[in-house]
């Protein structure tokens, strides 16, 4: 584990291992632990895939104490050897058709039928590794390697809200309309983020997700 400064108001805690559920479980556990400790001046603890961003006020936070808390936390979490059994969130998806304009090309690139893409996407339970890009956008993985098609080289200017996409081994749902480069295979009507709601986000790091096909897209 390394702790790297990001300017004077942020630390990046970095674990080895890339996109790995066990590494991310430790990241999420460390985030929860630091959050619960409510260290003075620390206002945000944000998980990445194998990293953790700790945002603080350098005029209020004792940096040495913060680093010690991170190191102690990481030591105590090293014994975690499997992800926690969190409940699975089911997200209903209308696959293909106008809702999934890239389904056919993903199928072609994967050398299988569109129905196979749907089956392979919907048959897995995914882990939410982190959120970013826009509020409520959950980076989930890992996608079946046989359909893990890379993102478009040129992003779309407009991706409709609710679009379900694939980018390599990641999958995700666009909470709002934005530009985006992921391969769009379907759409959900389930709201991903509402700031008036508590909690505001449907998903958080560590959650488990399954996509459930609705009747075929038209």
């Amino acid at each position, binding site marked *: 584990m390394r702790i*790297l*400064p*990001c*300017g*004077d*108001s*942020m630390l*990046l805690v*970095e674990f080895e291992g*890339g*996109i790995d559920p066990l590494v991310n479980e430790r990241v999420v556990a460390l*985030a929860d632990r630091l959050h619960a400790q409510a260290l003075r001046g620390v*206002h*945000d*603890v*944000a*998980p*990445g*895939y*194998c*990293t*953790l*961003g700790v*945002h603080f006020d*350098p*005029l209020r936070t004792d940096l040495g104490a913060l680093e010690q808390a991170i190191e102690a936390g990481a030591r105590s979490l090293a014994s975690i050897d499997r992800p926690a059994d969190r409940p699975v969130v089911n997200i209903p998806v209308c696959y293909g058709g106008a809702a999934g304009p890239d389904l056919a090309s993903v199928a072609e690139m994967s050398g299988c039928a569109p129905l196979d893409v749907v089956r392979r996407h919907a048959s897995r339970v995914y882990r939410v590794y*982190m*959120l*970013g*890009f*826009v*509020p*409520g*956008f959950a*980076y989930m993985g890992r996608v079946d390697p046989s359909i893990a098609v890379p993102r478009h080289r040129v992003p779309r200017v407009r991706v409709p809200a609710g679009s379900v996409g694939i980018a390599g081994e990641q999958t995700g749902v666009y909470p*709002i309309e*934005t530009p985006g480069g992921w391969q769009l295979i379907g759409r959900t009507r389930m709201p991903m*983020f509402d*700031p*008036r709601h508590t*909690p*505001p*986000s449907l998903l*958080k*790091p560590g959650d488990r997700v399954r996509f459930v096909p609705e009747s075929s897209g038209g």
Partner: protein
Amino acid sequence: MTTGRLHIITPGLLTTVQDLGRRGHQALGVPVAGPMDRSSHRLANLLVANDPSAATLEVTLTGPDIMVEADTTMAVTGAEFDLTCDGRPVPVGAAFTVARGQRVRFGRRHRGARAYLAVGGGVLTPPVLGSRATHLLSGMGGLDGRALAAGDCLPVVAAGATDPPRYSIAQVLPVGGPARLRVMAGPQADWFDPDALRALAATGFRVSLRSNRMGYRLEGAPLDRVRDDELVSEPVGMGAIQVPAAGEPILLMADCQTAGGYPKIGYVISADLPLAGQLAPGDTIEFVWCTRQEAVAALIAREREFLRSSATGGVS
């Protein structure tokens, strides 16, 4: 306390409601937003004796024409604009009284890119996730999550005109010539060629037209890497200098996303972010490497100026 309204007659180029920022939700992908020049925003609130958490209007490049329904105290800080109240000149950097029905107009801009208009009692748009800061991409906060438009009415306190103490805190604005921004080595500084690290400090960069509240694209010498890997998405913050494959850096600003996958060569120090927030396309930057100790010392020195002014009740 009754509320009144502040009318936007014309909005200016990009005017948004901002407070110190939306903190505590970055784990859910919620950006902090807030003022591009935090220092000037704080000073504006101080000048009208507002709570530090009060929201101001951030004005960009061209300013609004506004009117109030009740007597109020206002102050404008940051970029130096010609300011009038019913045609009579009023100074930037000091509180002034505006009577009901009077028009405050922003005229020509002389120095800096962004100004902050504070009204006594603050702008009272509904908070979202604990903050009034506007985040444009996600449409959160401020007035309906967007830039102000002609005809908008903002809720403000009808506190009446007050006589707040004066303050004299030097503002940091570009003085002509490159803006000097001090930088600490970033988490992927070792991904870059030693020549690139030298070039960051030895060559100037120009803020390109492709710049906004999310970040500034910088034109200058390409920064070559020694490592070619992809970086998986990781948390970032305002001030990060991220370098996409094409080599031209992006300086992340107030509305930046909470995470990204480009390597970060450095982070601009907090004490210099207000100056960065006063830059417009065409302005130039000179980066200077510095240590954490220097960064924190600069922040403490600035904070002392604020504390000293508050403690004495101001110096005219």
